[in-house]
């Protein structure tokens, strides 16, 4: 137990370090991009200098970074928007984070739920039509890019079945605070989770087929346990160990995918904001969102490592 706490502490330190490096990198890059936040205003000369000075953009980049960092640490503030001048972005970003988290969470549940279920079914019915069907779906899942599936989803549910779905995947702009009902989330979440679910199906199936050959499964049968218990309690519990190992990459896939999906469906989450902020040279938003992604990925990987210890008692930190 103590060992685990120390381990968590070490990992948190590592996450902080990674986030610092990543955020500085991004900060540096976005400030080097040609153009600036005030291009569209057509301000030049003296007026531009005044604006730049007002937002501290005339200082050397390390200094700007230092100011940005102290703003987060001291005031919990990600700074102000340069596009909508002076608007504090923290509340905005947090709201968008909650939308994205709902989408990503739903996609993760779909991924794991579908992937594991398909994998187990395919394995216990190995070489039957069930196996072939589910394996085919999985292959389609991880070979068709998520934006293709997303476009199909829009076509089917947004256009053809518009009456039926009552425009369920239509997201009014600007945001009115009514996003995130389950029905609204379902199509984009499936589009987002489908790709990774294919990977999980494949790994679950392979792991199950391997585990079913093990001696302890024979022991479980020899005890007189019914097949359901043998498969779920004895085989699946062990098969989840390799499945857990790809949860980290899965979370990353979902985060990256969410940027694409949110833009296709017009979901006002972090991913959409991220892309827009780049075009608008809204430096603080870009860096802020990217930093949040870095934190999410770090924490997700730590979470996966902790799940390991629950699933496999042989692993201790």
């Amino acid at each position: 137990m103590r060992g685990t706490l120390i381990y968590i502490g070490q990992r948190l330190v590592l996450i902080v370090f990674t986030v610092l490096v990543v955020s500085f990198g991004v900060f540096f890059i976005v400030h080097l991009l040609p153009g600036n936040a005030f291009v569209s205003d057509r301000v030049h000369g003296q007026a531009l200098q005044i604006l730049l000075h007002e937002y501290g953009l005339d200082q050397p980049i390390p200094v700007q970074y230092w100011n940005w960092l102290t703003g987060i640490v001291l005031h919990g503030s990600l700074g102000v928007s340069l596009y909508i001048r002076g608007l504090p972005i923290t509340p905005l970003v947090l709201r968008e984070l909650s939308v994205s988290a709902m989408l990503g969470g739903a996609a993760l549940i779909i991924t794991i739920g579908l992937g594991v279920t398909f994998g187990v079914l395919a394995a216990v019915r190995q070489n039957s039509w069930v196996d072939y069907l589910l394996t085919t779906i999985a292959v389609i899942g991880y070979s068709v890019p998520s934006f293709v599936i997303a476009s199909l989803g829009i076509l089917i549910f947004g256009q053809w079945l518009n009456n039926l779905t009552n425009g369920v995947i239509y997201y009014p702009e600007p945001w009115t605070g009514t996003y995130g009902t389950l029905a609204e989330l379902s199509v984009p979440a499936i589009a987002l989770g489908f790709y990774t679910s294919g990977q999980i199906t494949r790994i679950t199936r392979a792991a199950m087929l391997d585990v079913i050959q093990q001696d302890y499964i024979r022991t479980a049968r020899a005890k007189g346990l019914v097949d359901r218990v043998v498969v779920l309690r004895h085989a699946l519990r062990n098969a989840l160990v390799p499945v857990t190992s790809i949860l980290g990459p899965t979370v990353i896939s979902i985060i990256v995918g969410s940027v694409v999906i949110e833009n296709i469906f017009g979901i006002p989450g972090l991913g959409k904001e991220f892309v827009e902020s780049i075009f608008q040279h809204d430096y603080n938003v870009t860096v802020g969102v990217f930093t949040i992604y870095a934190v999410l990925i770090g924490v997700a990987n730590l979470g996966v490592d902790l799940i390991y210890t629950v699933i496999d008692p042989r692993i201790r930190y």
Partner: protein
Amino acid sequence: MPGETLGLVGESGCGKSVTALSILGLVQRPGRIVGGKILFKGEDLVRMPVDELRDIRGRDIAMIFQDPLSSLNPVLKVGFQIDEAMQAHDKIPKDQIERRGVDLLKEVRVPDAARRANDYPHQFSGGMRQRAMIAMGLSNRPEILIADEPTTALDVTVQAQILELLRDLNEATGTSIMLITHNLGVVAGLCKRVIVMYAGEIVEQGPVEQIFESPQHPYTWSLLRSIPRIDADRRERLRSIEGLPPDLIQLPPGCKFSPRCPYRIERCFRDDPQLKEVAPSQEAACWVTMKRAYAEMGAATITDTRPGAASGVRPPKGVAAKVVDARTIDAAEGPVR
């Protein structure tokens, strides 16, 4: 027979494990039982529907295996795995299961049983894991416990302890034990009756002392000669059996042991001998039997155990190709599969 101890002996690869697994219908795909009968209380287990067979597994006939580490589920607590065997059947009242689980661990001499029940298999030593397997096997008070080489994976001192434990439990609980092993010494220590298998078939069976005293099948005889003995004459070399057991998929015609048998006669290559009574309650499947081998071929003094050495019979033409002995294969084709 209740309380009996039966040994099933044969070389590695002769089909002992498969025989034991088929009793409970646990032969792995693509393997399957193509024929024969396994009678338990007058019912044929081979033809029994899988639902009924499942009720027998673990409740009436329990089984423990060679490698106790791989036989226990690594992600479940040992105590839970034992309790689970009882929960699968309704022989033990639900409210007694947990206490009985700990009691069983005590019974098989796992120290500090109550605490150890909450451990995972990797926290147990090899001997303790096998004790836990035995506890699991006995948890439903089965009539028969099949132990497939329960000591092969353990070191010698632990082997002796496990065998002693099995003997004590057999006496205390009246559970019959079917011990599978390739070690006749183990059989001598634990069993009253013994079955000798060769190439998936019974070649000799009878009471242990009788078989040790006067084996009638040349295979049994060779097995006995291959046990190291402390009291043996130093000059007498330990004899291993020449050659390898046959491929069970492609069996030779006639007696399965004929390619390796020192006492074979012409007939052995043609006709497959059936089990016959050779002494009171002792049966052997052999055309010659050791009685005759001693009388006619001087088995008492023979030192050459190569195929056909005693009788001088060579395999008939045509059979010869299949009946190569192991050394020839080694030389010609590299290691045998």
